[in-house]
């Protein structure tokens, strides 16, 4: 996906995979990540963690023109993962069997994806975590739309907080992303867009300097070819990806 006005790309990836592909992704991750994976109690959660880290490394390796296991991360002050020695910014999120990633050479980015599920007491949830304007915006919607819209609101707020990278020092209730509809907000120079991550999921991306941008659906990593030795990514048509992206 390219948002005009600044270069930002969106990617999605499936996390529930046939054994062979999961094995390949497992080989892309670091020993620390492998160890962390073993700490998950459920095999399903472990496998999804491995897949998510594997796809992320492949994606970044393709942009950086290196091998997936050569990608090095560092944690910023607010706990946000970042790349060592690179201008490439990124953010990742996953829910159930889907991961969502954003990359940009020019702007800080945040993404969030949530599987839409039943929540007991969704009004209580909104009261605790959403601003008064957001709560009013939700209450004005028809009942049948409210659950999906609440999840979208959460994804919008999370994407923004993750974009800022200051960690959870900011109270969710204290800032307002409501600009008239849940699909698009602006806040303090940041633009937040709803992302189409497939049926049953709410997702959002946040970035700075994106005024006037138009979102398009994420590119699916599952449909791309990865070269394990060089790390380059190609579309199945043979077109290469990575390097600096066009506006």
């Amino acid at each position, binding site marked *: 996906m390219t948002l005009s006005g600044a270069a930002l790309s969106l990617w999605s990836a499936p996390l529930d995979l046939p054994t062979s592909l999961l094995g390949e992704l497992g080989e892309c991750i670091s020993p620390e990540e492998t160890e962390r994976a073993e700490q998950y109690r459920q095999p399903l959660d472990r496998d999804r963690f491995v897949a998510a880290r594997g796809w992320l490394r492949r994606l970044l390796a393709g942009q950086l023109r290196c091998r997936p296991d050569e990608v090095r991360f560092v944690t910023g002050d607010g706990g946000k993962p970042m790349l060592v020695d690179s201008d490439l910014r990124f953010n990742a999120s996953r829910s159930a069997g889907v991961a969502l990633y954003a990359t940009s050479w020019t702007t800080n980015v945040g993404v969030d994806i949530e599987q839409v599920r039943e929540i007991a007491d969704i009004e209580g949830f909104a009261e605790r975590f959403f601003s008064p304007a957001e709560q009013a915006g939700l209450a004005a919607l028809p009942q049948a739309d409210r659950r999906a819209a609440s999840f979208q609101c959460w994804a919008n707020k999370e994407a923004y907080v993750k974009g800022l990278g200051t960690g*959870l020092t900011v109270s969710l209730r204290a800032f307002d992303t409501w600009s008239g509809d849940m699909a698009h907000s602006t806040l303090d120079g940041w633009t937040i867009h709803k992302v189409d991550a497939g049926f049953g999921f709410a997702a959002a991306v946040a970035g700075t300097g994106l005024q006037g941008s138009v979102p398009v659906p994420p590119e699916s990593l599952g449909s791309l070819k990865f070269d394990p030795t060089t790390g380059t990514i190609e579309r199945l048509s043979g077109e290469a990806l990575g390097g600096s992206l066009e506006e």
Partner: protein
Amino acid sequence: MSAEVVTLGPTVVALIDRMAASSPGSLAVRGSDGTLTYSELLARSERIAARLRQLGVKPGDLVGLCLERSTSLVVGALAIFLAEGVYVAIDPKYPDERIRWMLDDSNTVAVVYDGDTAARIGAGGERPGVLLQDRGTLDDWSIPDTRDVPRTLPEPTDLAYVVYTSGSTGQPKGVAVEHASLTNLIEWHRAAFALGSNDRCTQIASPGFDAAVWEIWPTLAVGASLHVVPDELRNDPIGLRDWLVSEGITVTFLPTAVAEGIIGLPWPHHAALRFLLTGGDALTRRQPVGLGFTLVNNYGLSETAVVATSGSVDPAGDGPPTIGSPIRGVVAEVLDEQLRPVERGAIGELVIGGVAVARGYVNRPQLTAERFLDGPDGKRYRTGDLVRLRPDGEFDFLGRLDDQLSIRGFRVEPAEIIAAMNAHPAIRASATLAVGGSSADRQLVGYLVPTGPDRPNRDELGVFLGESLPEYLVPTRYVWLDELPLTAHGKIDREALATLDRDAPGAPLDEIRELPGDERPRKETEAVIASVLVELLDVPAIGLNENFFLLGGHSMLGAQLIVRLENLFDVEITLRYLFDHPTLAEIAEGVEIQMAADAADRTRTG
């Protein structure tokens, strides 16, 4: 999509009336209890309708219909229509409590039943009963004067019947369907299958299953004959095939599991069968090339008056058969979670509009408001099923939205696993079940019917299935069966399957996770928080030092945890605290520190 304008003809009552007048001697119903011509059918129904009127049944009243599949059932149903009532279809095989509950829940004012049911649920009492014997005759000598039965016919907007559906969660609910929807179904069926008075059709569906509505009324509306399938043949594919051939059946409906069993058998060329209609479960296989009849797959719900989409199955096609395209009078949309149309060809929830949509649920206004949406073109029903529109205009059925099968917290669609298993040459038919305690501990078991003597072992099957399924969808255990057990409705009997597995030697089901002593909650706060976590994370137990996030927690679940704990303990907890202190022991400690601080504040300000 705007609703197609549909002209509705006369209601089914008017049509049957016409048949009885024009060809009184032609066969209407044949069951193991005997036969009835059209004039006999109508005469008996009129008498019962008169009795119902005597008992105080007024137009629009709901009347229970609790009879086994038989000529009496048809007589009783028609009688209730003639009395301008609405019949509530109840299967006498249900437990007594359930029958009584359904009669009460739908506010029936009377019930039409037979001697056995009367003995079980009490004859008369607060609710008058009309007892039928021997092909729909009344159980007493006083024959009501039928000249007093008014011949006003139902309006299209009047209710026709109520059928109960349980869906995947809890309480059954009664779906109320209007005559307009029924008439539409009849007219579609007549045109789609070129149904005429020489046709011979079957009745196999259980009385409480709305497929029975589809079998009975279109048949009688065109003057064809209805043949009740003997009980013992419902689980006997060879016997059933032979009976269909010897009875000269031309159009039959068979529930999916029964149809799948029978299409693989050899069929004689002289068989009169033109159409085999099926539906009720996802159809996972196609018929062999060269059968003398057309297999038609149908999709619908009680809430959409039985059939919403239909399509003939091409024996030479790839993959699972589609569910066809919308029938006349049905508008089908594919919508996202915010009820907006998805891109053409994308996956979404199937929402049905048009004259086929039922009026709603009996006695459940809130649920009705949630599932039946108002729209500019009338009501639409959210099916809860995922579909995708193909370029050829037919729909691929992709499974249910809600958790019917849940493994370790993730929704699993059985059809995908079954299709993968059926692709193995040694497997003729299969089913799958998630067994075990909570979603976190559940395991997938594959139930397999072999094609021949070959029985691949667990590892071989694992490798084969692992090529097309993610690891967590590959069953961990397999049980080989001669046949798949079926329910009275002809659907796969999941409870019977679950019992089979419990008997399997060495099958470790229902393992309860025991926490070691030093991991168990030590005090009340810890115990309370543990129980909230167990519910939110859907795990059987949680130890003091286990990390919320390593157990499958994520930030939104953490947010829900916070809302619950704040309400329970009247404190404030931040998401930040949870991220920095993610174990049960730390969370409890944080809560206790807050409670102590609050208490101290109160004493100070006292």
